[in-house]
């Protein structure tokens, strides 16, 4: 079992004719993902690695019965591409693109509240259910199937932690990158809720970082609603305030949140052990299982 994606997920790749889109569509297919269509305006009728390309997401869904999309569209056009995915009633849209202007994402966020589509990202590595499906740019070879769920704001940090887990024989049920942008679709809480409901996820790793209050909210959720044990990691303990390493202005929250310490404290208060190093995170998971 797994969450959000599996063997049956049928994927349309938005931006499949671009360099990144083409390369990663190929990697996804190689991993065994059902990539059933591409969508690129003006490229309808072409094929990429045997995958038919349509001019719109709507046509792609109509013709190939896709239920998820992965978005590899440059930042200037990515907000529009996410809107297209949301307006097509897909179950899942995964926005890989980094650098979408925040004000564009605020508008996307508004639309998101009006649809049933789940958005992952933007600025995320995607999602993988090992052995079944991969939507995004995660390197498939470091994952192995198992019962540890993983949710993270960072791509390469995810790989590091997964590597530590896999090395000890701790496989993953599903690994999700929720994205490093200030405004994202699926939050930690959304992912944790799904892992809690998944009978085949027996432990969860949550990798957070400085900025915002998502980790604090996640800590409250874990304390109140989760039986599945969670191990945490928080990046950015040494980040100076006011510098862009993902840090938001503390003024909106006005309550001292956003620092690594605030997140670590919140997680500890909820009974979540937080590793000082990625290795220690794997130690905690090993103790859980």
């Amino acid at each position, binding site marked *: 079992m797994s969450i959000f994606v599996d063997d049956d997920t049928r994927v349309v790749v938005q931006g499949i004719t671009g360099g990144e889109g083409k390369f*990663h569509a190929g990697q996804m297919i190689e991993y065994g993902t059902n990539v059933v269509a591409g969508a690129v305006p003006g490229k309808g009728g072409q094929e990429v690695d045997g995958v038919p390309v349509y001019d719109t997401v709507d046509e792609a869904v109509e013709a190939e019965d896709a239920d998820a999309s992965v978005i590899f569209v440059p*930042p*200037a056009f990515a907000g529009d591409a996410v809107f297209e995915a949301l307006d097509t009633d897909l179950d899942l849209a995964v926005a890989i693109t980094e*650098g*979408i*202007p*925040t*004000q564009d994402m*605020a508008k996307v*966020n*508004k639309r998101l509240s009006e649809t049933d589509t789940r958005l992952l990202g933007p600025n995320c*590595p995607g999602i993988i259910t090992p052995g079944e499906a991969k939507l995004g*740019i995660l*390197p498939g*070879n*470091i994952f192995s199937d198992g019962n540890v769920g993983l949710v*993270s*704001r*960072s*791509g*390469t*940090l*995810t*790989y*590091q932690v997964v*590597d530590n887990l896999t090395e000890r024989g701790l496989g993953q049920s599903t690994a999700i990158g929720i994205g*490093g942008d*200030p*405004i994202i679709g699926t939050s930690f809480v959304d992912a944790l809720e799904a892992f809690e409901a998944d009978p085949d996820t027996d432990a969860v790793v949550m*990798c957070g*970082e*400085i900025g*915002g*209050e*998502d980790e604090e909210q996640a800590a409250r959720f874990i304390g109140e609603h989760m039986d599945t044990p969670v191990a945490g*990691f928080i*990046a*950015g*303990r*040494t*980040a*100076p305030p*006011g*510098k*862009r*390493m*993902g840090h*938001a*202005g*503390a*003024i*909106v*929250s*006005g*309550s*001292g949140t956003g620092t*690594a310490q605030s997140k670590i404290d919140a997680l500890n208060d909820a009974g979540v052990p937080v590793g000082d*190093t*990625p*290795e220690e995170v794997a130690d905690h998971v090993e103790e859980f299982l």
Partner: protein
Amino acid sequence: MKLHEYQAKSIFADAGIPVPDSRLATSVDEALDAVDEIGYPAAIKAQVHVGGRGKAGGIKIATDREEAEAYADEILGMDLKGYTVDRVLVEAGVDFVDELYVGVTMDRGEGKPVLMVSTEGGVNIEEVAEENPDAIAREHVDPAFGLHPYQARKVVYEAGVDADVALDVASILSTLYDLYEENDASEIEVNPVMITEDRDVVAADAVMNIDEDALFRQPDLAEMAEESYEDDLERKAGEYGFDYVRLSGNVGIIGNGAGLVMTTLDLVDYYGGAPANFLDIGGGAKAERVTQALDMVFSDDNVDAVVFNIFGGITRGDEVAKGINEALAQFDEIPKKVVVRLAGTNAEEGMEILNTDLVEVEKTLEDAVQRAVKNAEEVTQ
């Protein structure tokens, strides 16, 4: 990206927000010419991206020419929390009876812009937010509709702004929201808005930060960004297109992906060292990028040792290894010891390719960081 006060104020003035008469000066002579035109009292304000400029001595009020000369001479060239002041804004002093705070920023938790107004202006608003959050009135804006004018009025009244100036303040706030949208700002703040004895409303300070991800569609602001770098290394990072933050330690750090680079900084600290910088080389690191990244850390005089940590997803370890070999082959002598750790895609091939005459190699992140910390310690001993 932070704009300077003088840059933000020129944008404010063009949009019709009342600001004090002012001139930019880069020398004492220019500053004196400016006060001659503006008159007294005149504020001499350091133009650096440092909070609390006033407390740190970067803002002085001159009441005559002699004082103006002394203050301009004192502030120009001054070191303000690590930044050297190379320009000052000379500005007409405002005789005020009251100070307000107004701002527009993105509430990331809500995913919506928020207007903020407080009658406790002129002081550190972060402290107000922490100690007395109720002293700041807030109003969220639906990004799909934009600001309804009533919302600006509502939040101003809610904050308790004096009735006779409330509509003028609301009008400034409304204009600030327009500027926020038009310029892809991440934050606009006026602290303080001054109320004069004649009940005029003046924007006496200006903070305007721009969403770096939107600079591609803000060419004028991108040009202003050029003027706003304050550190040669930051400027260089801007030219190379790296995400870079300079810190005060002596262990240089190069890595890929924000979370993993942050983690590498944290581990340097955890193992008793001090990180010198955050440098994210990004995906698909080719030889040229590696050369540029090494140039960044080698040009930082604070750096005594370097750790290079790559976890390849899209980035291939063998390509990074070739890049490192090529980049370091250009040096007759490697200026600072470099510890490399490669993991992920083609990492093993990469480790074999690496020229161990030029770099030290470690298998795990923890070992690589500890070795770099030790290398840095050896240099300082």
